[in-house]
């Protein structure tokens, strides 16, 4: 961290002066979280899981509510566990039933939200203590949590190296992937759990209401321009990082929420790529 602080102090910003740390922490957190979202985003979009990741955010909220009810010091762990279980159960139900995936997602999402609100307001509890989750506050991030995020980034990159081919194949053509020995169910389950963990861990800083946009917009914009998987990943990750840093700086200047600012930058980028996209068949 010392190295990072001294590096950032070289930047010509008001907040980069020695002595204050919150923006330096936030900047580092953004630099770790954004590539993570850029990477996961590619598969969320290719696999048509945008609503699924949204539902996961809801289940993470429920997990936090349960964790708080049980009086855990850090309800995040309960939330991670619940979101991972939710992801597994979802993948299972979707594979074993012939329901359309948006129906399955609707079922799970609304159940999770209802359960979360039920628990949060149980015994006339007040919902306001959960408000911070909805908006998120990236300035509150601590070095310990950044380390945790960095570990998650590493794990996800490893997961990507090992299983991306199988994942892509199962999303393009499940039957073909199956016939070539890809364990479609487990690939999808592991991938969903990875999203679940990432969403849950970063929810506190990004904000539940906008977190899904980070999982959708980078790749949605990249998809407008990319012609193959290499370009797709490159565009998605670069867009996430640039928008992340720009959004953080804007939120500092304007005093707005960082999560929302990042999302708006991404949305703007999406609009630009949409206009730039080559008309193709």
């Amino acid at each position: 961290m010392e190295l990072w602080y001294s590096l950032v102090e070289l930047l010509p910003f008001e907040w980069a002066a020695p002595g204050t740390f919150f923006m330096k922490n936030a900047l580092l957190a953004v630099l770790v979280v954004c590539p993570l979202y850029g990477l996961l985003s590619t598969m969320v979009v290719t696999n048509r899981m945008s609503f699924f990741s949204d539902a996961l955010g809801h289940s993470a909220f429920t997990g936090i509510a349960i964790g708080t009810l049980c009086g855990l010091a850090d309800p995040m762990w309960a939330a991670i566990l619940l979101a991972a279980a939710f992801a597994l159960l979802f993948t299972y139900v979707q594979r074993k039933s012939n329901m359309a995936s948006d129906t399955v997602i609707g079922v799970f999402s609304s159940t999770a939200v209802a359960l979360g609100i039920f628990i949060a307001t149980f015994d006339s509890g007040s919902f306001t203590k959960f408000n911070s989750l909805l908006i998120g506050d990236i300035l509150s991030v601590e070095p310990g949590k950044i380390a945790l995020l960095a570990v998650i980034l590493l794990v996800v990159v490893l997961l990507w190296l090992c299983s991306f081919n199988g994942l892509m194949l199962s999303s393009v053509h499940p039957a073909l992937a199956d016939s070539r020995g890809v364990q479609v169910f487990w690939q999808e389950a592991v991938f969903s759990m990875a999203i679940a963990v990432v969403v849950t861990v970063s929810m506190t800083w990004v904000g539940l209401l906008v977190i899904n946009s980070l999982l959708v917009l980078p790749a949605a914009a990249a998809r407008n321009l990319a012609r193959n998987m290499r370009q797709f990943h490159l565009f998605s990750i670069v867009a996430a990082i640039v928008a992340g840093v720009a959004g953080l700086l804007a939120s500092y200047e304007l005093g707005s929420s960082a999560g929302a600012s990042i999302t708006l930058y991404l949305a703007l980028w999406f609009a630009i790529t949409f206009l730039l996209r080559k008309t193709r068949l």
Partner: protein
Amino acid sequence: MSVHKHGDSGPGCAGSCCLKVADLGVNFGNEEVLHDVSFHLHCGEIVALIGPNGAGKSSLFRTILGQVPHSGVIEFQRAGGDKTRPLIGYVPQSPSFDRGDPVSVFDFFAAAISKWPVFLPAPKKLRAKVTACLERVHGDALIDKRLGALSGGELQRVLLALALEPLPHILILDEPLSGVDIDGEKQLLDMLDEIRTRFDLSILLSTHDFATLDQYADKVILLKSQVLKVGPPDEVLSSPEFQAVFHLDLGKGGRN
């Protein structure tokens, strides 16, 4: 196709390489999808599977691929009588993927045949290998096209090239002619003909196009949850069973 009927591995299978399906049954829940399905598939043979929608053609394929639990026997033996698990090349029905996905033919192919993560810059060797595979179906020019930009026939050729790597003993094609225009159809069938002689493999395909059967298929299997009729195209198309199922008479000279 002349096959000597002797030996100990059941009728029609002796010595030569052969896929033997005997008394096959498949149930999904309480619903019986297939029962008493028996047939043989020899090397170098093109066998066409016909039957109405819902007759269990795709289920039969998935069963042979080992994706569906079944009763009965599926056995494969190599030339000489060794019984081993066959390598099966599978060409699925044209996938219903999103046409705008940024998945190039190379991405798709490389993801299926190698462990190299396709989101990283590709090594030259892998690209050369994919090109070589595509050359088998005269499709090497397609390598940088997106999957969504391919025509029906081009997509079938890419899927076919994929099914031929690694070179299988049996090639299974699920309705390869649907969504393919007349030129593409002829090109594809000629290619299958070329492949079976070049690589000496058995081809099993399902189709609704009875007009081309006579020209390309050695044997036709009429399936409707059980095998109603097996034999040379002409014999099956003029059989009472065929007429009963399709209400058509397509015997000698008949064209739909």
